[in-house]
């Protein structure tokens, strides 16, 4: 079955003076997917989604939703998108249910429907008993959950989440993660949604996204499924061995005789190979033979962070 494109960006560019925040960003998001925009802080993720939802006008390029360009004058097309901003944006002196009703009405949802949906959403987010509490009396985690469902009352086709797990406690994080995934899989009371989320957290992107676009300095570096992206790093697992800084080069030369794919990063030998665990005794012998004394040894699978590092030479959090 061919996936339907619900959202497309064509050569989106946004500049602030001499700074190019987003440059020629072209993306295609398919219906019913969770699409992750992964990049370090300042990569242009928020600028991109602000253009996608129509809050920011691109200097050039276009955003198409269902093939129709998004613009200032077409509230109908803009209303197909629900946005959960990174910061908590609530009316402090309204109750949880009043906020949901009000924002629903602003999207032309009849009050009765908005109320019904609001109550359902509060139930899902574990806030049913707080329905009549003022937003300012909720804990930070609860406010974040309410912030998320504010984007859903009008039942949009596309849900845009800007750093959805930022500031969430572990319990809320699990709740939000599961709920976001259920949105795309129709496992809830609403129509299936396409979810676009921005994050600088590779775990979040890996766990939640069906496809991931990695961006840096406003440019799209790569876009694919997390598995496909990780596969580009090579087969097998990653073995990391901490060594003394001065002996790193010597260690790398010794290990390279056993495993061809070896590099150094932050006084650590990074060895990538299929069945690397079986090779461990030989690798350690080789290091000792080269008078290199190994420190901590870690074994892990390939991550999106590895993909990012291979593309930019930097870590996501640098």
């Amino acid at each position, binding site marked *: 079955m061919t996936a339907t494109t619900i959202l497309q960006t064509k050569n989106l560019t946004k500049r602030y003076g001499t700074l190019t925040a987003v440059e020629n960003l072209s993306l295609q998001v398919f219906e019913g997917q969770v699409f992750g925009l992964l990049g370090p802080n300042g990569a242009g993720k928020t600028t991109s989604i602000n253009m996608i939802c129509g*809050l920011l006008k691109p200097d050039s390029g276009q955003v198409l939703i269902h093939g129709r360009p998004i613009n*200032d004058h077409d509230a109908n097309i*803009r209303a197909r998108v629900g946005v959960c901003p990174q910061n908590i944006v609530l009316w402090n002196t309204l109750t949880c249910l009043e906020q949901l009703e009000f924002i629903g*009405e602003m999207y032309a949802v009849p*009050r009765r429907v908005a109320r019904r949906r609001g109550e359902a959403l509060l139930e899902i987010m574990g806030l049913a008993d707080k329905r009549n509490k003022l937003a300012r009396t909720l804990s930070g985690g609860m406010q974040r959950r309410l912030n998320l469902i504010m984007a859903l009352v009008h039942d949009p086709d596309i849900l845009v989440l800007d750093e959805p797990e930022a500031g969430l406690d572990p319990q809320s994080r699990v709740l939000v993660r599961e709920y976001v995934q259920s949105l795309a899989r129709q496992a809830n009371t609403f129509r299936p949604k396409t979810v676009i989320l921005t994050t600088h957290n590779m775990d979040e992107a890996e766990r939640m996204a069906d496809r991931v676009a990695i961006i840096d300095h406003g440019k799209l570096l790569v876009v694919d499924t997390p598995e496909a992206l990780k596969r580009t790093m090579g087969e097998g697992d990653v073995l990391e061995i901490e060594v003394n800084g001065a002996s790193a080069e010597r260690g790398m030369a010794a290990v390279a005789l056993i495993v061809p794919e070896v590099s150094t990063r932050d006084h650590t030998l990074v060895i990538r190979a299929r069945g690397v665990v079986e090779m461990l005794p030989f690798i350690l012998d080789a290091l000792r033979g080269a008078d290199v004394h190994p420190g901590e040894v870690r074994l892990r699978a390939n991550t999106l962070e590895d993909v990012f590092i291979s593309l930019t030479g930097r870590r996501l959090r640098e």
Partner: protein
Amino acid sequence: MRLWSVFRKSAREQKRDLMVLALSLAFAPLFVVLYWMMTGGTGSTTYGVLVINDDVSVMQANGSTLSAGEDILEAMRGLTYKNGSPLLRVSRVTDRAEAEAQLRNRGAAILIIIPPDFSRIIRSTLEGGEPITTLVTFVGDLTNPYYTLAAVTTMTVADQYIQAASPRPRLVEMIEIPLGASAARTEFENYVPGLFVLSVILLVFQASMMVAREIEGGTLRRLQLTRVTSFELLGGITAWLVVVAVAEVLVTFLTAWACGFRSQGPLWIAVMVGIITSFSIIGVGMIVASFSKTVSQAFVIANFPLGFFMFLTGAAFPLPRYTLLTIAGHAVGLTDILPPTHAVVALNKVLTLGAGLGDVAYELGALLILSAMYFAMGVWLFKRTHMKAM
């Protein structure tokens, strides 16, 4: 209807922020009470007069004693407003230096020194002798506005006394014809129309800050994504603020009424003037919000139009009008672009002079046009600055 939803939301938010609502409702009534207290708690100012009476009584031909200085003091003490409250508070003093110190401290408005020969000269006039001049001295701080009123009043009393004593008829008689019921109005009552306008003018803060709160809190960005238009959003907020304006006018009126104010014309016209004026003030508030990103910024900017409204429209004190042109017999001045100017005139006509709807039609028309203009400008600017994708 989204406008109605915004109205309901604004009302709810205000209801839960009772202190702000209470303070805004209390501000103008507080001014009413202050003005009432400034006018001596009677509705009219009693001017302090100090008198050094050096006059020496004299014996008249019929054997009676003439104490002209004392007589004038009595006449001054007997001078009252229509409501019976005294116009002058006369205090006898003997030490001039001490009296002048009181004037400097504004403990009194004027010092009057009656000379020793005052009664003797009056007696001479009564007995048909040659006119001789004597010198009554007025001492006071000429920059004190109370001085002029006290001096004029005292001169009038003295003049009337001397004229009554003189056998010669007056060359010129003057009569006074009060407009409407103005003769029966206390000084306090004359301030009240301006205070009504003040109660509405203060909405400029609330209007601009209410919108700025949406901007600062980021909720406006959320609303920008929805289908709500600038007109619906600002219209809903305005509708709520008009309710507040009506409440403010009514609370101000009730306070004034409790302090002795009585309207000469129908109150509903005054309320209508208040409502129409509130539209224009709220419109100005929206303009202020268009240039603000935070609540504190809106507060600072709102002071600018507030100053204009208070001091250039006659709301705080009467101002001379500079006519630029005349339209259908109505003089149009520069300050006529400020809606409170028309509101002050209309309210004066209704509350003080007992005018009806037809008498204030011009002012109401001007207010309607200005209100529509300011509100439209507010919506347009707000849309351009805050509701468009940047």
